[in-house]
């Protein structure tokens, strides 16, 4: 059968395509936590913008610079920290799904990949913390 004949022999059928509701992410816990994971990038971005502003302020010299210490700023920073931790933990856990490699022709278990990611995160945090505290003294 030629393409034209095949097309013309098809009976046009009217279908109904339901629209995706705006609240689709409230249908299931899985969808909701996915949205939370994606949303956590927003407060992190805001905090980093604030950090850029502080660097620009500190660039004027030590005289007259004072670090922000108001209660709202501390609360904002703690909330951002919680979001950052959630984002980091979910991101590193997903590394076990994404990274796939073999050692001695055997696939490395995803649990080991995730553990190595968390280990690297811990080491990096300790090094950065030590550098910041060292420079602060």
């Amino acid at each position, binding site marked *: 059968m030629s393409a034209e004949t095949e097309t013309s022999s098809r009976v046009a059928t009217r*279908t*109904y395509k*339901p629209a*995706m509701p705006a609240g689709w992410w409230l249908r299931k816990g899985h*969808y909701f936590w*996915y949205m939370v994971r994606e949303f956590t990038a927003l407060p992190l971005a805001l905090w980093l913008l604030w950090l850029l502003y502080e660097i620009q302020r500190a660039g004027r010299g030590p005289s007259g610079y004072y670090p922000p210490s108001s209660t709202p700023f501390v609360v904002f920073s703690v909330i951002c920290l919680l979001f950052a931790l959630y984002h980091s933990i979910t991101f590193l856990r997903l590394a076990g*799904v*994404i990274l796939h490699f073999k050692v001695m022709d055997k*696939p490395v278990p995803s649990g080991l990949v995730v553990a190595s990611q968390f280990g690297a995160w811990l080491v990096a945090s300790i090094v950065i913390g030590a550098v910041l505290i060292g420079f602060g003294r």
Partner: protein
Amino acid sequence: MAEKRITVRATRFDPAKDSEPRLQSYDIPFSDDSMVVLDALNYIKSHVDGSLSYRWSCRMGICGSCGMTVNGTPKLTCSAFLRDYWPGSITITPLNNFPIVRDLVVDMEDFMEKLKSIKPWIIRKQEMPLGAGEHRQTMEQIDDFRQFSQCINCMLCYAACPVYGLDDKFLGPAAIALARRYNLDSRDQGTKERLPVIAHSDGVWECSFVGECSVVCPKGVDPAKAIQQTKLDTSVRFILPYGNRE
């Protein structure tokens, strides 16, 4: 002892009469604990309302025909037991994210086109003569792609994927998982032919890793894993000079 009964609500849509789908309620006997949702639909069709339309075939979780949304979750209706819902009621709607043709039947055309686009077969640069023997594989080589070859094309993953729901140009979970199945097969040499489709902006990069596709898969395939691993592989191929080698 009173007969156990269960209320089943099913989507009805007649394209010749209805402007939009509606739910119709049926009160049917729940006579046997081994009854599945598909049995309930078959009971309705045989004893209550013969005009109810839905797809089914094997009744044993192999053909992938009877996928529908049961109480909001994409399921193979032949594997969803009534006892898991009773004494509550059951609402059966067509698979989300697909156009409804009639009642519980959806239009599969878009999925079929996507499946075809990733060339789900072994591609060889040059076929070996039959006399040269089999393409032998080790168990480790088979393990590389085995889980991705379990897909039965039931489309539950597409129904669970909000990315596909929001933008149906997305290649989708099953097609990408199947592409990965062939790309990982040691006998296959067709990765370069599949790359333009899977590495396209409507391919793996459209996915934001919701992960629900892997949750609903009735065969234990992990399409989310296939997609993320393909993202990594295509990036490596792009960045590293040796990446474009076969």
